[in-house]
């Protein structure tokens, strides 16, 4: 099962194509990093995949099951201040009308997974930035998504917290095997997380390079010090330089 984008174009106004003839296939269980200059249309591409925007031309083939089970993580955690961590995480299930006892169980499992179980009864105002993001991540994961879209999810966090969350996300992915597409401005993060790094160019936005990153799995942070990693990183960096000219 794969997702195909064929010759996708997006115009917000008739004169300027934000995305132009963009084609891309996303395979099941892949982790894809999306990088590119600011304003090239990365968020727009993600939003089209989520259904938040509609492509002007071209077609988007998403298998129905995947479409039904897509989660989106915004850069801002977008938590409800009046709900506890547990109630925030349970929200998507609550909206589906699922029984409370089941919600409680799912929430507990998810909080355990993102390491937030101790904070279950805290309110967002009592959390650090990293914890807020974990909570947002747990909310996205609680529905067991097949496709997880993240738009610069950890950009506002310090490096150590970001590394931690990257690692946690990789660990979760290695168990759940969901497909992940994430936007980032951080080359290390893109290279470390992804099986493929997609480099976008701007004006008009399209995929300029598609760089496979074959590194030993499971990945752990020490990998970043190896020569293999540096080689992949250089490739990604060169591709980004190319489009940024």
């Amino acid at each position, binding site marked *: 099962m794969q997702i195909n984008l064929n010759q996708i174009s997006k115009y917000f106004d008739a004169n300027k194509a934000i995305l132009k003839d963009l084609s891309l296939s996303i395979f099941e269980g892949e982790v894809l990093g999306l990088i590119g200059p600011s304003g090239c249309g990365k968020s727009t591409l993600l939003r089209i995949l*989520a*259904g*938040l925007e509609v492509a002007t031309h071209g077609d988007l083939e998403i298998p129905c099951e995947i479409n039904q089970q*897509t*989660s*989106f993580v*915004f850069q*801002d955690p*977008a*938590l*409800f*201040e*009046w709900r506890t961590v547990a109630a925030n995480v349970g*929200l*998507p299930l*609550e*909206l*589906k009308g699922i029984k409370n006892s089941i919600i409680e169980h799912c929430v507990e499992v998810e909080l355990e997974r993102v390491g937030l179980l101790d904070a279950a009864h805290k*309110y*967002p*105002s009592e959390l650090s*930035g990293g914890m*807020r993001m974990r909570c947002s991540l747990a909310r996205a994961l609680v529905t067991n998504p097949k496709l997880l879209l993240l738009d610069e999810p950890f950009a506002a966090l310090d490096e150590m917290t970001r590394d931690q969350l990257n690692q946690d996300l990789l660990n979760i992915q290695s168990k759940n095997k969901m497909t992940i597409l994430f936007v980032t401005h951080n080359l290390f993060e893109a290279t470390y997380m992804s099986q493929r790094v997609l480099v976008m160019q701007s004006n008009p936005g399209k995929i300029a390079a598609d760089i496979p990153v074959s590194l030993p799995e499971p990945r752990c942070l020490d990998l970043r010090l190896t020569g293999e990693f540096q080689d992949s990183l250089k490739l990604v960096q060169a591709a980004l330089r190319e489009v940024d000219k």
Partner: protein
Amino acid sequence: MKKYVPSVILFITFLLIWDLAIRSFNISPFILPSPKAVFEIFADQHQELLDATLQSALIAVAGFVLSILIGTIISLLMSQSKIIELSIYPYAIFLQAVPIVAIAPVFILWFGAGTKSMILISMIISLFPIVTNVSTGLRSIEKDVMEMMWLYKASRWQILWKVRFPSAVPNFVIGAKTSAGLAVVGAIVGEYFTGLSGESRGLAFLIQSNQQNANYPFLFATSISAALLGFIIFSVVSTLGEWIIKKGHFERKVS
């Protein structure tokens, strides 16, 4: 308790200067009665003052509660339909700009010189802060949040209950605080217009009758009672509102 010390000292100083001014400048009691005379009224006529204050308080509270109920319903309707909003909102603003003294006689003409009119006048004057604040709160939901709810396929009612209402609580409290003060003004102004022939025996009656009888210490004591009533109602609403916000974690997020 410590934070009240400066204001209490200021109050005592104020009383002393008041008293001193009357003695040293020989101010006639018809212009400014002495603090002692006013205090004597509070001591001797406390029953009459208390009755009048309670009567006005009841009207103000009734008007305030009604304005909260009606104001919330109006805001709710406006948040659910653009057409309703576009048709009601201009009138809400317009009515807010009309001076209460211009509306009060009309209400008395329609509903009689009784409690009903006074409650309605108090309600009308305290309604708009609720409408403007609550409808702003119900409407201003961040784009991210709305998109998230859309992705979760939340229904209109779920969005209303789980997002709009809780988001609007801080705005509701701001509106209620303004409204509480105005409800007291409305209750007293309303009673003014029913005149001395009216059945009501609230603060406005006492103010008017003391004015006519030239009982100035009593007039002052009544005015002070009216000010105290406004202050107490505002403080209760304000404290209760802050408590709800704190207890329910409804504060608008800073990050």
